[in-house]
């Protein structure tokens, strides 16, 4: 199909029709199947009069059917809003915000198509329709406040996948409705690789799938790497096929990176950087045990203003559906991530909004978490700020221990452990011991937010 926005993908698919495109529920699906089903979806969408420019919610997760439908909708110039089970409680709200006109609910191998009766008349949607470009709406998984809906021109996102790179067997760890998940899917398929899907993100389940399907690449989050280490799942599965782990979505604790690198010295650890609003930048870590990373690549420019990373991206979103335009007048996106710069390398310190200001001193939760994760008996930790009349904020921590321990002796042990490792103002003043887990379904750290009196945990 000439002029198709996914013509380059069709070419790749046609080259090796019998290769595995996806592994889903343990079974393989070939590229030939994907091509056939892509066309079958066109037939179905024609029958249901899903016209170019229609705004379509796809409820589902990575599956052969979901991928074929995704590509068919791109090819028709529709705007896609993928929604996974992890946001089920917000489906109605998101569909309303996204002015979705058609909902396609996927259920295993089939799906139902129904019209909502809404009309998508937001200026961003009108623009996509006028230009005949496919669109993508991603909801930010912000830990506070309302989720923001970022509208993308999919042609911008697809552009970087025209260049052929490595053909890899990749684990679809990041979700279907996350910029990282969409990136994983497009990278894998545009190089004729295999997308290995999993039913859940339990470390043993994921690692078993990696062993069974000989996965080369695991794109994941620092929290999940921590879970692999804590659960010792790596002892129960043979990960000799694994060549690269990419990590992003939140700051990586140095201690976690080093521990993982010591266990898997031959696995390349590569940091990634991207946001729902701008897409994923190309990146290159200085080394497997370094948090310093080069960012940029074709179509991306970076600069640092007042310590905060700004990005100008050709693949940037058109804007939000439900929030003001966040770009500077000259088109830069202020990421909110505080960074250090060393030549052409960046080190991402954390979200500015998560930095705790203790009497004028800055504390990055990730640094405190990284230190305390090294302490014997500590299984997981979430660090956040709490208001304090003397220093404005103090560092607070919720900690899960391997074995139960009394709070007071634990605190004493913790302070002794931190001595010489953390400056006094970084040592948690308030400690709560808990059995809770601290990560969301996206396996990303959830830090408690102190909200009493309407005060957030931000320091500014």
């Amino acid at each position: 199909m000439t002029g198709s926005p996914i013509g380059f993908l069709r070419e790749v698919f046609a080259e090796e029709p019998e290769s595995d495109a996806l592994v889903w529920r343990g079974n393989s699906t070939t590229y030939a199947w994907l091509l056939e089903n892509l066309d079958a979806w066109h037939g179905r969408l024609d029958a249901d009069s899903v016209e170019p420019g229609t705004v379509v919610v796809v409820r589902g997760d990575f599956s052969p059917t979901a991928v074929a439908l995704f590509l068919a909708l791109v090819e028709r110039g529709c705007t896609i809003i993928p929604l996974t089970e992890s946001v089920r409680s917000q489906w109605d709200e998101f569909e309303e915000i996204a002015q979705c006109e058609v909902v396609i609910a996927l259920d295993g191998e089939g799906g139902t198509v129904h019209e909502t009766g809404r009309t998508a008349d937001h200026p961003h949607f009108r623009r996509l329709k006028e230009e005949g470009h496919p669109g993508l709406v991603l909801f930010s998984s912000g830990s506070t406040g309302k989720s923001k809906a970022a509208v993308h021109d999919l042609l911008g996102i697809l552009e970087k996948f025209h260049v052929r790179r490595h053909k890899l067997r990749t684990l679809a760890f990041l979700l279907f409705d996350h910029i990282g998940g969409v990136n994983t899917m497009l990278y894998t398929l545009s190089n004729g690789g295999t997308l290995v899907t999993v039913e859940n993100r339990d470390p043993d389940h994921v690692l078993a799938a990696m062993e069974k399907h000989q996965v080369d690449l695991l794109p994941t989050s620092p929290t999940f790497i921590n879970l692999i280490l804590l659960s010792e799942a790596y002892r129960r599965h043979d990960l000799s096929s694994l060549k690269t782990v990419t990590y992003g979505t939140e700051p990586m604790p140095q201690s976690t990176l080093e521990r993982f690198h010591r266990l898997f010295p031959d696995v390349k650890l590569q940091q990634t950087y991207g946001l729902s609003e701008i897409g994923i930048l190309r990146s290159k870590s200085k080394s497997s045990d370094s948090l310093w990373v080069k960012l940029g690549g074709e179509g991306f420019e970076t600069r640092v203003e007042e310590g905060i990373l700004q990005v100008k991206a050709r693949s940037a979103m058109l804007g939000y559906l439900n929030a003001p335009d966040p770009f500077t007048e000259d088109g830069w996106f202020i990421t909110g991530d505080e960074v250090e710069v060393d030549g052409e390398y960046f080190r991402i310190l954390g979200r500015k909004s998560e930095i705790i200001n203790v009497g004028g001193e800055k504390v990055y939760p990730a640094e405190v978490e990284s230190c305390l994760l090294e302490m014997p008996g500590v299984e997981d930790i979430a660090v956040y700020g709490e208001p304090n009349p003397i220093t404005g904020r103090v560092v607070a921590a919720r900690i899960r221990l391997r074995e139960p321990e009394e709070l007071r002796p634990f605190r004493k042990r913790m302070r002794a452990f931190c001595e010489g490792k953390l400056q006094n103002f970084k040592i948690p003043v308030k400690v709560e011991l808990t059995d809770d887990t601290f990560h969301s379904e996206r396996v990303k750290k959830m830090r408690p937010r102190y909200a009493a009196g309407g005060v957030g945990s931000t320091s500014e």
Partner: protein
Amino acid sequence: MERHDLLRLVQDTLDDFASMMPDGPPDTLDESTALFGPGGLFDSIGLVTFLADLEEQVNDEADAVITVADERALSAEKSPFRSIASLVDHLAARLTEE
């Protein structure tokens, strides 16, 4: 709680905080020992941490929910945190208010 119980609790909690005293623990601890300010045992973060622990100990033992450091305590003409004696008085007053 009696005053002497509170004094014991303060001294007890201070024992845990030797590492947070910039000049090290003093040779003698009595009611006149300065906590914060000139000649005090703590800097601000040390004081904050110590008070947070102490608050928990007091509330635990007295089965109370007092706040040791708040705006009112900070705006008092004489700081309740200048010495062990003033701190013990402050704790006793807060417990009476309960």
